[in-house]
């Protein structure tokens, strides 16, 4: 790290990453606004942001490769180049997922599954917070904060697992909700992937600065692939138990036990 040029180059790349990060944060924020039905122009804004993000991604790759080709980077510098290129890639993917969430929210029927939509919105807020934190950590070279963000991905995964199960149950109980449920599932999945990429960015930061990756002691994973609860057929639950259970969330008793 003693090469006088590398500090300046690092700063240049970090500034670009900051700019890119800002665009991606804005994209995710617009997507969440669309999910809360607070804007109409989500699609256009995310497209514009997406283009800028791609531009910066290309520029970062150029600078990194150029630097690696023309100078003798030290070990940490080389790690830095590698990490920056990966972080740029992850940010670009996050932007893409945000764009998809914004697009899909236009197909949602907001009158149905309102509590699930609220849960999805909460998951989205958590994801946006995490993204801001990891970008702050990158600008500050704060590996402690990066580690916190990496660990906090478990919360996002836990929310995803619960939401997935709830959506499945909701679709099972009311066949009319299947379309909505599908859209919600995809959006939840997108958010979970965003969370994943955020923790990847955190790991790359740590790798750049210390040369080591995180210990994988996380205990919460995406367990939705093992969900085998059969969906309850529409006929059984068409006459819902409204008269007996006015305050319970719309889940039949058996689902709650799982």
């Amino acid at each position, binding site marked *: 790290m003693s090469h006088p040029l590398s500090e300046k180059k690092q700063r240049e790349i970090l*500034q670009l990453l*900051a*700019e890119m*990060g*800002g*665009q991606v*944060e*804005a994209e995710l*924020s617009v997507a969440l606004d669309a999910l809360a039905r*607070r804007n109409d122009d989500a699609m256009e804004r995310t497209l514009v*942001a997406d283009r*800028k993000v791609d531009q910066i991604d290309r520029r970062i790759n150029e600078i990194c490769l150029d630097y690696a080709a023309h100078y003798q980077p030290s070990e940490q510098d080389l790690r830095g180049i590698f990490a920056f290129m990966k972080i740029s890639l992850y940010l670009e993917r996050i932007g893409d997922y945000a764009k998809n969430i914004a697009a899909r929210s236009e197909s949602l029927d907001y009158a149905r599954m309102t509590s699930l939509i609220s849960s999805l919105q909460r998951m989205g*807020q958590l994801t*946006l*917070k995490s*993204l*801001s*934190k990891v*970008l*702050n950590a990158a*600008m*500050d070279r704060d590996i402690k904060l990066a580690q916190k963000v990496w660990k906090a991905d478990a919360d996002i995964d836990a929310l995803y697992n619960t939401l997935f199960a709830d959506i499945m149950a909701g679709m099972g109980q009311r066949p009319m909700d299947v379309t909505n449920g599908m859209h919600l599932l995809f959006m939840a999945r997108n958010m979970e992937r965003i969370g994943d990429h955020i923790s990847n960015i955190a790991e790359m930061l740590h790798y750049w600065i210390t040369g080591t990756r995180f210990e994988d002691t996380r205990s919460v994973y995406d367990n939705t692939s093992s969900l085998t609860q059969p969906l309850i057929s529409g006929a059984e639950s068409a006459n819902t138990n*409204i008269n*007996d*259970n*006015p*305050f*319970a*969330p719309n889940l039949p008793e058996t689902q709650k036990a799982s």
Partner: protein
Amino acid sequence: MGLFLFFLYGLLFADSCSNGLGACWQVFTLVLGLLGTVSLYLLRPWLKVREKILTLAVDLKLLDKMPKAKDLSLSETAESVVFTLSQLQDNIRSATDTMLDLQQSQTDLLESLPEPVMVLDADLYILRTNDSARTLFGETVVSKNLTAILRDPELLEACHNSLRKNDEESIEFKLSTPVEQVFQARIKPLPHRGFTVLNEHNKSALLLTLNDITAIVRSEQMRADFVANVSHEMRTPLASLIGFIETLLGPARNDMAAKENFLRIMEQQAKNMSRLVEDLLSLSRIEMREHTQPDDPVEVEALLNNIAVALQLQLKEKSMRLIIDCAEDLPPVRGTDDELMQVLANLVTNAIRYGRGGTPITLRARLAAENPPQFPHPEARAIAISVIDQGIGIAAHHIPRLTERFYRVDKARSREVGGTGLGLAIVKHIINRHRGALVIESTENVGSNFTVYIPAYEPEEFFAGT
């Protein structure tokens, strides 16, 4: 001049005695003469210096006028030099002190501003912050780049525009950590570099001021949501009414049985809308009065008894009975009786609607042992009136939102039993007006307890001039 004459005289005198003494005298006067010229020669620049020092002293107003150079001896000259120089040093010191004071008061001014303020350089590195900025972004934010804390693309663009055009910019942006907030940023170029004096390398270039408009934005959103909700609530029964009217005028014109049926449904829908309008008016009336605390004494036991009488029909319909458990010698509460009646009516009606048929509803009134945390005056005495039912209960995650306008746990059921979605909102506003608190506890499948805490009527408050 005198020295020259003396020199001449000496020479002449020496000439007149041309013996040994004369020779000595000649040498003596020669030496003296030489010494004299040499010292005069040496003294002249020194005299010039003295003159300059004295001019400076006069300029600095340390002397009223310049004394004649030859009036001052060498030591006096030296003194005057020292004196002038020390005065100069004092002047410089006091000027520096003044500048430091100015800078400190500048800092004090900046610190005292309630809005976060930051001074940035041309590369957007943070040079200076005030207390509010450090509270918002952390103590170590100085010398970081702006992008370490704020990356909104529009904000960054506004900063660059401001630098380029040397013009003020204003932009709104959102911050997601630590909490969701919305700010109005004002960016102003700083041409005078006044914020970077005394040993700082980076030149100050931009002033960034943030104004927290989160509350305003939220309130706008809530207003918009409310209007949307009311319209939606009205539109549903109206659509239904219009549908039935069209049917009665058309296909079902001669169908007596259908007419009977449809008219009953239309009556119900119309009554629903009427109830909604009544509740909206109620809410509006209460909100207008909310800032004035009531100041009449109201007897609690009478209140409870009146409610039992008023709702006896609804209670009988579901075979539910009201148990009144009022403590002895309860002081009156400070309130408006018809508003408190409405609170109890709304709470008991909910207990009837969502309670299980055949179960009792308990109305309990006690002096509160401990005031809940949200009670405005923690030390004041309060009466706790509880409405306890053995209904189905409310899930924990619904409870914080229960008093929101139009919030329902089960929309279909609520409409079926004639609820408007505003009952608890009305309760909340009345309790606010009474400077009380509402506490909701519930266990699913067991029951619910809605307790209102109302300040007791303390006559001394009116006479002591609190």
